[in-house]
């Protein structure tokens, strides 16, 4: 009996050790409570409650995760090529990454905005910004595919983007780096004050989602950081955080941190619209790409646009007002009521909350403390609702839960702090592991937050996961906020380096998620709607193969008559009409990638026939018990060898015929 008892307590200890170890391998565990795992647990075969649409930062992609499980479902390539499915490599998708600089295969994707109607999620699109070569992208939430990319002229570093107005009337894009714009851009860097300008682009979104730059505000040279649109009573206004009001152009770490206060820039965009309608805009020359993916042809087009409408700062006197905000403000977030604007000075030790009503009164009563570059600066006290005192160190971003609470991330003190918007009192704080950047409450930026969770996207991972050499996965953390106290319930790894993310209830996207492309609707110019339409055609040095794929053969699977030096275009149509049956296509020696072809879709891989021989091609996406049989051969002959174009499937020939050709 004693032995048994001993044995059992041994098991118990092992269980305890295992339980602790499996939940949290290392690091501080004070924040974890007993029922955490069950709250994040989604049983096999069950669905998550939320889609979490997460920026990928320097991978130029978007990750789609489930909440509360933290499971990764999909990576959507946006500004970066993706050899896994051929994005940026297939002939159809190459135009998506065209810019005025030519093909740009990478960008730095920071922020997500989900489309809204009346300030509430409507589940139509996600917008994302490309920082480096300034661009804004639109992702269709039926297909989870990037369907439009608009480049931004006169912009350096599109960071303060892609924030939207409450009916998705506009997406904004403003410059992080002010740069010289206009006709003379070859100027000394030291002439920053005189020659460098910021721009704020208002991109009009039409009902089909298509984007067009309606106008650009030309502003004094500063750095724009983040932004939020007004909503409800403040609809018609937009708020931008600005730093480097010192207008430094070197060692910004020191030189742009001199002043006690920088600004939040309030923009009356309805007024700007009036000025544009009154013809006060000035059309200026520009050069920027507008790329659209067309669903009916499964192909993208790229158009280079030549001009943009600008409003000059001289016209901006009653469009733009600066509000002092301590110190180097980063986040600039508007609460669900639309009345409160929260500025988060990343070097500040307090959080100022501004009142929209007070701002309006201050403007009416001209309670200005002076001007910045000729534009009015409202007195701090006149705009201020109140300050959250001693909240933590290094406030960055604020989200809202719809119950009057705000959640602010603190990078320096590594925590999330919950506070009440009305009385500005701190209610709770939880540590994050480590150094949180952005945070996300489902529906947090909307008029009607869904609440329930807050997710921390941390900048430092250190000891949270099994080490993988110097480079580690990025660490996200999920907290339950349904009670008074925030509770850590899950760590989950993320791809790239997430910045902002949004989350939307699963039932808003799930019912309309697309399953197939109908063959009947396929208008690709090289489609083969059935094996009867497969063929191989020569056009000079180009060979076009109209190919079909269905479980489990490619037609044609024998191709001859290709000559060394030819450019061969494999236009592959997937004849399947069932969900989750993509086929892939790869051919030996291809210098680009594979292509994945969804059911009913046509995609094209270009292949240079640079040497003679016989080259196998095959399906790369496991499709059936006979997937391994899904293959073909392409013969490439020397230019002088007179082999005619010939193609077939399932045809066997007398082995001697054609010998010596």
């Amino acid at each position, binding site marked *: 009996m004693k032995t048994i008892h001993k044995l059992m307590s041994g098991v118990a200890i092992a*269980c305890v050790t295992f339980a602790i170890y499996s939940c949290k391998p290392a690091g501080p565990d004070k924040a974890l409570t*007993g029922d955490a795992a*069950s709250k994040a647990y989604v049983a096999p075969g069950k669905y998550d409650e939320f889609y979490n649409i997460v920026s990928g930062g320097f991978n130029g992609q978007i990750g789609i995760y489930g909440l509360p499980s933290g499971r990764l479902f999909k990576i959507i390539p946006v500004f970066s090529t993706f050899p896994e499915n051929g994005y940026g490599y297939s002939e159809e998708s190459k135009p998506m990454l065209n810019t005025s600089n030519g093909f740009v295969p990478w960008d730095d994707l920071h922020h997500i905005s989900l489309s809204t109607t009346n300030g509430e999620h409507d589940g139509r699109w996600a917008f994302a910004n490309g920082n480096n070569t300034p661009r804004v992208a639109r992702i269709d939430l039926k297909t989870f595919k990037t369907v439009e990319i608009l480049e931004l002229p006169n912009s350096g570093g599109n960071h303060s983007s892609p924030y939207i107005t409450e009916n998705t009337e506009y997406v904004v894009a403003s410059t992080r780096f002010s740069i010289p714009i206009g006709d003379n851009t070859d100027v000394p860097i030291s002439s920053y004050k005189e020659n460098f300008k910021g721009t704020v682009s208002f991109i009009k979104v039409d009902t089909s989602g298509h984007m067009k730059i309606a106008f650009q505000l030309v502003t004094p040279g500063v750095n724009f950081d983040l932004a939020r649109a007004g909503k409800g009573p403040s609809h018609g206004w937009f708020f931008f955080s600005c730093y480097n009001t010192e207008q430094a152009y070197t060692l910004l770490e020191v030189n742009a941190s001199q002043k006690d206060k920088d600004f939040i820039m309030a923009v009356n965009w309805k007024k700007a619209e009036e000025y544009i309608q009154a013809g006060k805009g000035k059309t200026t020359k520009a050069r920027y790409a507008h790329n659209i993916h067309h669903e009916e042809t499964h192909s993208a087009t790229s158009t280079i646009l030549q001009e943009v409408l600008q409003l000059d700062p001289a016209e901006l006197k009653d469009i733009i007002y600066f509000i002092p905000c301590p110190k180097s403000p980063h986040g600039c977030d508007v609460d669900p009521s639309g009345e409160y604007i929260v500025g988060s000075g990343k070097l500040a030790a307090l959080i100022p909350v501004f009142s929209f009503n007070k701002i309006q009164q201050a403007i009416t009563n001209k309670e200005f403390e002076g001007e910045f570059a000729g534009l009015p600066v409202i007195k701090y006290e006149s705009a201020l609702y109140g300050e959250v005192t001693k909240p933590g160190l290094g406030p960055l971003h604020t989200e809202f839960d719809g119950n009057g609470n705000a959640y602010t991330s603190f990078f320096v003190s590594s925590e999330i702090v919950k506070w009440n918007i009305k009385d500005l009192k701190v209610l709770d704080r939880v540590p994050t592991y480590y150094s949180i950047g952005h945070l996300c409450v489902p529906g947090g930026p909307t008029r009607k937050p869904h609440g329930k969770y807050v997710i921390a996207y941390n900048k430092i991972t250190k000891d949270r996961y099994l080490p993988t050499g110097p480079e580690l996965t990025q660490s996200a953390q999920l907290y339950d906020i349904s009670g008074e106290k925030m509770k850590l319930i899950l760590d989950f790894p993320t791809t790239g380096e997430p910045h902002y993310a949004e989350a939307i209830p699963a039932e808003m996207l799930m019912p309309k998620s697309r399953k197939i492309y109908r063959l009947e609707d396929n208008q690709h110019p090289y489609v083969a709607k059935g094996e009867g339409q497969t063929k191989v055609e020569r056009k000079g040095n180009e060979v076009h193969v109209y190919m079909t794929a269905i479980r489990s053969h490619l037609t044609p699977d024998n191709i001859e008559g290709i000559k060394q030096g030819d450019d061969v275009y494999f236009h592959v149509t997937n004849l399947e009409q069932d969900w989750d049956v993509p086929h892939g296509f790869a051919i030996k020696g291809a210098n680009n990638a594979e292509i994945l072809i969804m059911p009913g879709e046509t995609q094209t891989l270009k292949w240079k026939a640079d040497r003679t021989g016989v080259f196998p091609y095959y399906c790369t996406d496991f499709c059936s018990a006979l997937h391994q049989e899904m293959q073909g051969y392409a013969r490439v002959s020397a230019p002088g060898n007179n082999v005619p174009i010939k193609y077939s499937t399932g045809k066997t020939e007398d082995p001697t015929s054609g010998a010596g050709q």
Partner: protein
Amino acid sequence: MKKLFLIMLIGATFGACGPDKPKQTSENEDADSYENIHGSEGGNAVAANADDGKGIGQVTEVTLNTPLEQERIGRGKAIYEMKCQACHRLDNQRVVGPGWKEVTKRRKPEWIMNMVTNVDVMLDKDAEAQKLLELCLTRMPNQNVSIGDARDVLEFMRQNDGEK
């Protein structure tokens, strides 16, 4: 011992809950919306009654007319060429799936239309369909053919079998 009991309790709560599947609002705007295809398996599965040779699915009674309906034949042929020809020849030779020659003599029209429109359920439950899967070893794909389109394909099959 007490400790052990406690641990077991915690273990039990661990696996206990998880959110249910989100409610799906049916919004049948597209032919391929989530509801349609996802729901089709359940929706089409009329009581299994394989004995009558009609298969399993929405199609319980088909009226065949003589002479053949020419309009249907044209449409049926177009659907065949786009969605079926890759695996089914018009003679009696099997490639991926069986050749279509004499199919209208071997099978009841209802069985054919159920096989085309409700293939996943047929392959799981209908004995004749299962025999074909054992023979061909490739599951016949759901080609998203509507009942109306399947009727047109049936007319084309009848013509292929020499009916006038």
